[in-house]
Structures are given as structure tokens and as C-alpha cells.
């Protein structure tokens, strides 16, 4: 009897949870995940399928996913994939192609913005994911200041042009300079034109990309040969360095987006080149002093594109139910509800939907931002490239290395990595 009870207790402890009517999803702990969670009771009512979402931090997702995806049978039926990992996951054969399911169920993928479908949808001619949400980068700015008639008059008097949402990089640079101010007369700038994130790695690489595009640069040519070490790249570093030294807060060389966002949220900066999804946070009185004052604009020359896609792993124990869920959550009704709640859509119609626009007037600018976004080089060794680029950029903006030398080194690393990945002929 004792043995029986012991065995029963051990069995009760082993919660493997592989019930047929439950799908297990791994997601990042962000608001867009919460908007999905809010809709789960509706999905359950309509399909009878339970959805168990496990949401963890971004930095832990890759570590958690790698063993799951490389096993013959994993614990997740459905996952979300950041654009960083697309090449790695698809080349490793971890994701299930969705084309047959799309064809069978007549799912219209033309509703997705092409920039996002290319980023987190298709790889070559195969569809591995359906875009979930975008986090393309743009300029978050103080609309109360930009629209202030006194500021507009002073700006025109100084530069001879209108103060408005910038359409050229030079126009934005002028605005950054104009709004950098010494408000207490101690000779130091204490209201900043912009806030930079100069920390090595991902932080500086992502933000600097916008400076590169703003200066008319690109990462590589059609043969994947590095071009970012050209004139535009050097100018981008010089602009970034000047913004840190003259127009930004002390310590911005080691900021990442959280520190930078807090400077803007404290009402101490005019603008911040960052992910569009941060905008909602600036309207939260718990974390922002600029509630109702922040607007968003596309980066002149295009901002860095970013996004997540829904994918079914080959190791998924319940592929059919996972596909049912993807179809449901990406259907018009669910997308509208998620976007109304504050989500960042990937389908073109959502940016023009009257109901959504009435609640979120920034959708017009967001549409331009996402449509003009430029793609960061995504290939098997993207993570290695970001490490090299981030290190060299940080050395350059902190004055430890000449910008040309830093870019030359990063370009050399890039060329080696793309050759290794078989992309450069």
C-alpha cells in the first residue's frame, strides 16, 4: 500500500502536460503577449482548445528554445521567433514550413506588410512564419514641443525651415541641435535633443543602424559585400558621437534602451530613436512624466525593421491545434482587438482601419514607419556580427578608435561571416 501511495505521489509530481486539447506556447514577456492572453477565453469558447502561454524574458528565450527545438519532441506546440533567429532556426531545420497549410486553408498572406513578411514570414520561397507584431524603429519625439508655435517661430528664424516631422536626416539633426538646451544657465546642456544608447552589442548596433540609413547608407550590396564602412557609415558614427557629446545626457555611451527611455520618460529629452512599441509606455503615468506628449515619426531614410513571427516547431507535439490557433489569432477580429489594446500590427489594413485609427491616431505615422523600415542583415551568424559591430561602434563613439578603422574592422568581420554562411560569392 505504501509503495502504491509513493508511486501515485511520484506520478502526481510529474506534470508533463501533453493533453491533446491544450497547446503550449513560448512567448516573450511583453504587452503584445498580454493582448494575446486576454483573447484566450474567446478562443477556448470557439474551439474548445486550451492555450497555455509561458512568457519569459527575451534574453532567456534562445537558451530555452534551443534544446526544445533540437529534440525530436519538444514541450512547445507553438513559438514566437524574433527576426534575429530566423536564419539560424530555419537553416537548422527546426521550423515547419507553413505553405501547405496556408494553401489548404486558403489563408491570405497578402494582408501582411511586405517588409514584415520578408522579415519574419518567408525565407526564400518558403513561408515558415506568420508575422505576429512589429517593433520597427523610428523617432519618438515630444509632439507638444514640435507643435508649439513659439518653438516653430524660433526654429524658422534660426534655420530658415519649418519645424515639423522631419523628412530628411539633416532636418532631424537641426531639431536635435535646436532643442538641446541649458535650462538652468550653468553652461551645461540639461535638456537633451536626443538620447543615445552607446552600450556595446545589440544596444548601439540597433540604434546606430538608423543613423546609417539616415545618412543614406546600407549594410551590404547585392552580393552581401559590406558597404557600411563607406562615407555614410563614417558620417553616421560622427553624428552619433556628436549627439552623445553635445546633445545627450552624461553616460549615454553605456546606455541601453531602458536607460535611454527613462531619460525621455522623465521629460528631459526632445527625441529618442527607438522601437515604436515603446511609445505606449510613455503614456503610462506610472512610468512617464510625458503622458500625452509623445508622438512617433518614421526615421528619415528608413528605420531599422524588427518583428516577431508565429512558428510551429518541427518538434511540436500538436501541430494541428497550433495552426488552428495561428489562424484564429491572426484573423481580422483578433488583430483588431489586439491593436485596439495597444498592439503593434503587421497587417496593412490595421493601419487604416477607422475603428483603430479613431483610438490610435498615431497609426498613420506607424504605417509609414513600418513600410519604410530597412532590414538588418539576418543570416546564420547575425549574433556574431552584432557582437563585432557593437564593439567597434562603441570604441569609435567613445573616442578609443578612429571611426574608419572601427568600421573597417567590423566590415572585415562581416565579410568573413557572410562567406562562412555561403552568402557572399
Amino acid at each position, binding site marked *: 500500500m505504501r509503495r502504491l501511495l509513493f508511486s501515485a505521489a*511520484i506520478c502526481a*509530481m*510529474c*506534470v*508533463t*502536460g501533453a493533453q491533446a486539447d491544450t497547446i*503550449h506556447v513560448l512567448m*516573450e*514577456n*511583453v*504587452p503584445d503577449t498580454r493582448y494575446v492572453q486576454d483573447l484566450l477565453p474567446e478562443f477556448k469558447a470557439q474551439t474548445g482548445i486550451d492555450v*497555455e*502561454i*509561458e*512568457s*519569459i*524574458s*527575451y*534574453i*532567456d528565450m534562445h*537558451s*530555452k528554445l534551443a*534544446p526544445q527545438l533540437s*529534440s525530436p*519532441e519538444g*514541450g512547445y506546440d507553438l513559438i514566437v521567433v524574433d527576426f534575429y533567429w530566423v536564419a539560424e532556426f530555419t537553416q537548422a531545420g527546426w521550423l515547419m514550413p507553413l505553405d501547405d497549410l496556408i494553401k489548404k486553408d486558403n489563408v491570405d498572406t497578402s494582408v501582411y506588410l511586405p517588409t514584415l513578411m520578408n522579415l519574419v514570414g518567408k525565407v526564400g520561397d518558403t513561408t515558415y512564419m506568420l508575422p505576429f507584431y512589429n*517593433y520597427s524603429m523610428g523617432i519618438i519625439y515630444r509632439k507638444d514641443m514640435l507643435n508649439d508655435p513659439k518653438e516653430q517661430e524660433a526654429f524658422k528664424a534660426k534655420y530658415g525651415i519649418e519645424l515639423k516631422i522631419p523628412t530628411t536626416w539633416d532636418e532631424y539633426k537641426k531639431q536635435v541641435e535646436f532643442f538641446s538646451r541649458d535650462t538652468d544657465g550653468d553652461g551645461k546642456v540639461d535638456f537633451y535633443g536626443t538620447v543615445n544608447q552607446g552600450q556595446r552589442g545589440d544596444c548601439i548596433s540597433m540604434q546606430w543602424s538608423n543613423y546609417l540609413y539616415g545618412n543614406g547608407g546600407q549594410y551590404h550590396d547585392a552580393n552581401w559585400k559590406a558597404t557600411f564602412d563607406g562615407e555614410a557609415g563614417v558620417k553616421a558614427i560622427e553624428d552619433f558621437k556628436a549627439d552623445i557629446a553635445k546633445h545627450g545626457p552624461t553616460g549615454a555611451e553605456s546606455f541601453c*534602451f*531602458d536607460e535611454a*527611455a*527613462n531619460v525621455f*520618460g*522623465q521629460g528631459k529629452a526632445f527625441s529618442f530613436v527607438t*522601437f515604436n*512599441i*515603446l511609445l505606449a*509606455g510613455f503614456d503610462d*503615468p*506610472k*512610468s*512617464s*512624466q510625458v503622458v500625452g506628449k509623445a508622438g512617433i515619426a518614421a526615421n528619415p531614410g528608413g528605420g531599422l525593421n524588427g518583428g516577431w513571427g508565429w512558428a510551429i516547431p518541427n518538434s511540436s507535439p500538436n501541430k494541428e491545434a497550433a495552426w488552428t490557433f495561428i489562424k484564429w489569432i491572426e484573423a481580422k477580429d483578433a488583430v483588431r482587438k489586439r491593436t485596439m489594446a495597444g498592439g503593434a500590427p503587421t497587417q496593412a489594413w490595421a493601419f487604416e482601419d477607422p475603428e483603430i485609427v479613431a483610438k490610435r491616431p498615431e497609426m498613420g505615422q506607424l504605417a509609414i514607419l513600418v513600410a519604410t523600415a530597412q532590414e538588418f542583415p539576418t543570416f546564420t551568424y547575425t549574433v556574431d556580427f552584432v557582437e563585432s559591430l557593437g564593439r567597434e561602434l562603441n570604441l569609435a563613439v567613445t573616442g578609443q578608435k578612429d571611426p574608419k578603422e572601427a568600421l573597417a574592422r567590423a566590415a572585415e568581420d562581416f565579410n568573413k561571416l557572410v562567406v562562412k554562411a555561403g552568402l557572399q560569392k
Partner: protein
Amino acid sequence: MSSVSSTIRRAGRICLPHAILIVFSASILLPLIWLARVALTDKLTAYKIPPEWAPLHFDNFIEIFVNYNFAGYFVNSMVAAIGSTIIALPIATAMAYAFARHNTGGATLRLFILASQMLPPVILVLPMYSLFLTAHLLNSWSGLIIAHLAINIPFLAWMLVAFFQGEIEQLEQAARIDGASRFQAFILVAVPVAAPGLLAAGLLAFILSWNEFLFALILTGKSTNTLPVGLAGFQSQRGVDIALLSAATIVAIIPVMVLLPFMRRYLIKGISLGALK
């Protein structure tokens, strides 16, 4: 004049150690006080420079239990830490006794045990994942306890060897002369004498398991996530939710803070007992 200088010297003798202790104590306590302050405010106030002393509130503590599964994380951490410590302690005690008294396995086995502690956990976690997948132990309390045993048993065995060396052996021999069997000498003499050390080692094993992150991240799922995994979740692509993270950190350190005053006596005695051998 000499009485003045001797007064100054005496004051210096009293004040200097206190000043040094205050500086060291402050370096440990100030981050904790700041953590508590951030936990009792919101993100906006937490990041204000210069700092602003807004009214304190418990909203963050309420939110981590209402909107996040912190009660579940807490229970999972408690089960894993208590379970692995309770199972590891007797096994490691027997191992340590065998090493100390009978030199079981010789230096090679001890070296292997030490080497298992020197391996980066990430090397162990992938094969462990495959094994657990086959044995259906993923996302289960039993799996998590087994994973933590893999860390705790070698650590405890290595630590406890010193407690069974020295005078304890003579006490055991005395017991054997009085008619005790080997097992009785171990249970009735060696273990009670080494009890402070066992308790200290048990407490350290509990803390090791309580703070363990990598195995918990890879081997658990939604229903078995532990506190360190839950804490990491407050860092997202939209920034660090510093106020909630601070509140959750306070909750995570409560058990150890509650345990420490009771265990301090044994911890100091136990560690010094082991160190002196």
C-alpha cells in the same frame, strides 16, 4: 597634554573600527535599502534624479501576486530547494563519511566529484534535457529536484568530508570499544557531533538551489517555473520593470532572511568547525 592625546588615541581606537565597520555595513545594506525603497514606489519615481521621496505603497507587491504567478513560483522554488536539500543531505553525509573514514574511491573519485562542480552548468543542462525528455521528467517538480541534486550532492559531499575527520574518529573508536556497531557509531556519534556542520551545509545547499537559474529555465515549464526564472521575466524588449522586479526580489530573499537568524549560530559554528579540521 598627555591626557588629551591619550583621550584622542582612545577615541581613535574606538571610532576607527566603527567607521570601517559602518562603511562595510553600508556597502551591503544600502543596496538592500534602495531595493526596498524602489519596491515601495513606481518606476517613474524609482528612476528620478535627483531622487524624489514620493509616498510609499504596496501596489507592486499586490501586482506581482495578482497579475503574475509569483505565489506559484514561490511554491515551486520552495519545493525544489527543500526537496533537493532533504534528499541530498543524507546521501552526501554518507558519501562524505565514506570518503573521510574509508577513503572510498581514493583521490580519483574525489577529483571527479570536484570536477563535476567545476563544469559550467550549461555543459550539463543539454544532456540532462535529453535524459529528462526520455524519462518524461521535464516540467515536473521531481525533475527539478533531481537536477538540483546533481548540483547539491557533490557540493555537500565535498564540503562535509572535513567534518568527519579529526576528533570524531576517536569518539567513534571509543563507541566501538563500548560495543557500538559501525553504523551505530556513525548515526549515534559521528552525525550528532557533525550536526552544526550538517546544518550549515544544508543551509548553503538550500540557498544554492533557491538561487539556481539555468536548470530551472531549461527544464521547467509554466507550471513549475521558479522564482529566479520569474524574476528574469521582468526584463523585456520594452525595458526593465524595475519597481515590480524589486518587489519580487524582496519576496525572493524573505525565506533566506527568515532562516538566517535561526541558523546563524550553526552556520558560523559549522563553517569554522570544518575550516579548523
